[in-house]
């Protein structure tokens, strides 16, 4: 439970140059162990999204080191980072980002397609992932036929279908109402507790952050506080049986 999964050392991120220069991250040190559930909070412009992009290997730091499982990420090429993402990372976005006019099944299969898995393997894994997010039987519905909460569940299934080490969720409840938000949080918490998937979540809703067991606050490109959440919200309302399905 205490393997060091992610280490950030003096990470800075500089955008633009000259007059328009903006130092979004001003030297971040952050350690994340496997199996943690971390909420990253902070006002807009605090650098939390930048940090998330770097943690998700979508962006590279301007200076400093990023070690993922002890390997340096900051020196990797674009394609090497893509390979790292497809192997170890899962993404959940605020806007779901499902392919339109494409069934839930096919949406979930997408990351497996890039791994080169055969159709049979893809189908089985996608069905299992959809089952895990409580959408068994909804395989052939397209996003337009699903509610927002269900769409986000499909997106979570897509993130976990590759059995990643880390799921990065960027405002996963930002587009959902309170009840659906709590369902999604319950689902993320369950994935974290039952499958041991490390979850990094950016949110600005304290209610949602309360599910995490560690809260990291960003202010002005620095980590202002990094505290454990001793009493995480634990009562996910009907996480396994979402109300909208009933």
């Amino acid at each position, binding site marked *: 439970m205490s393997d060091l999964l992610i280490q950030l050392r003096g990470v800075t991120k500089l955008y633009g140059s000259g007059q328009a220069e903006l130092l979004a991250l001003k030297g971040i040190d952050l350690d994340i162990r496997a199996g943690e559930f971390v909420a990253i909070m902070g006002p807009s412009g605090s650098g939390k999204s930048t940090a998330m992009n770097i943690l998700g290997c979508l962006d590279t730091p301007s200076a400093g080191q990023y070690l993922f499982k002890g390997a340096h990420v900051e020196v990797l090429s674009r*394609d090497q980072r893509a390979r790292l993402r497809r192997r170890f990372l899962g*993404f959940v976005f605020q806007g779901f980002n499902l392919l339109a006019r*494409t069934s839930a099944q096919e949406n979930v299969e997408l990351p497996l397609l890039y791994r080169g898995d055969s159709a049979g393997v893809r189908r089985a894994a996608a069905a299992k992932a959809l089952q895990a997010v409580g959408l068994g039987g909804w395989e052939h519905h397209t996003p337009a036929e699903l509610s927002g909460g269900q769409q986000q569940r499909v997106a979570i299934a897509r993130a976990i279908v590759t059995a990643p080490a880390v799921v990065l969720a960027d405002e996963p409840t930002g587009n959902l109402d309170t009840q659906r938000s709590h369902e999604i949080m319950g689902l993320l918490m369950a994935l974290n507790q039952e499958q041991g998937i490390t979850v990094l979540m950016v949110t600005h809703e304290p209610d949602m952050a309360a599910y995490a067991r560690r809260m990291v606050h960003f202010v002005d490109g620095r980590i202002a506080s990094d505290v454990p959440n001793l009493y995480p919200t634990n009562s996910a309302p009907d996480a396994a049986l979402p109300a909208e399905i009933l």
Partner: protein
Amino acid sequence: MLYSVFMLALRSILRNLMRSFLTILGIVIGVSAVITMVTLGNGATQSIKAQISGLGTNLLMVRPGQRMGPGGGGGGGGVPQFKEGDAEAILSQIGGVAAVAPEGRSSLTVVANGRNWATSVIGSSNAWFDAGNWKLASGRLFAADEQLAGAAVCLIGETVRREIFDGTIGQTGLGEQLRVRKFSCTVIGILAAKGQSGMGDQDDTVVVPLRTLQRRVTGSVKVATLLVSMQDGSDGTRLKASLKQLLRERRNLAADDDDNFNIFDTQQLAETLSSTTQVLTTLLGAVAAVSLLVGGIGIMNIMLVSVTERTREIGLRLAIGALEREVLLQFLIEAVVLSALGGVVGIVIATAASWGLSSLMDVPYAFDPFINLLSLAFSAGIGVLFGYFPARRAARLDPIEALRHE
């Protein structure tokens, strides 16, 4: 990997069926235009070749005149016409000549069986039938004394027989009296049908002995055309040269005078005409190929729109671990599949169109597998060419920016 990327491309084409169709429309039109043009052009070339070889192979046509295009009318004014003696001189003095037929021609209306029909009355000798590859359907050719005396006998072509005698019980035409202007002639033979030629319906003809035409119709001993058929395997170029020399002598031309006659070689005529249609075919094909290129630009346009429209999708694919070249390949394959699909649809349409048009235009349907394959390959190539730029743009997107795109 390639297979799954191919399936991805196919899926995204099917997801936008209407737009995919509109995208490939340009290619469809281009490909079908190219193939239809070339197929019809080839058919026309074939039919011209067939028509000219129907005139008779190894045939030289000699006509008086300074300058005359192929298939032109009678002799030029002021230029001496030929005489029957010229034909005999050619036959006896030039080696390699199989037959020489002097020919006179007059457009007249013939009457018989209560019907009349405007046709072309030809005066010539029996050699005319050899030179023109004519076969008898029934009856006989002219007798020697009939030719000498200019007897009132005639042979009729299939069209004349059909128009005058068809549907009348007991009248095959043979042995009937046919009224030609002021005289009546007995039909002694019916010619086997030859069909259409470059010069019109060859079967629409009545043949009388040359003397008969001269005495009873034209009233002159002049001969408009000499048909010279060469023996098989004789050297056409040398024969033409000695024919030219002989005619210059007989027509008293000085060394520095221009020829006042023309020699047409049907073989050469066939080549000239078919090379003309081939040039036209190439030109039309090239014009149609431009529309293929325009179709390619259409594909590029739609692919660029599609890349912009699917920016978030591309961002997602990149985020979940698609490599740059996988995204490139996906969009490239999408463009190629689209344009190749356009090629296939174009070929189907072109086959239908050229089949229909060729029967409408009365030319043979000349299916050319080469142009079909070429068009298909070309349209796929257009997909690669015009798909590459949008695909590269997609592949180089920054996943963070792309995911944020609205």
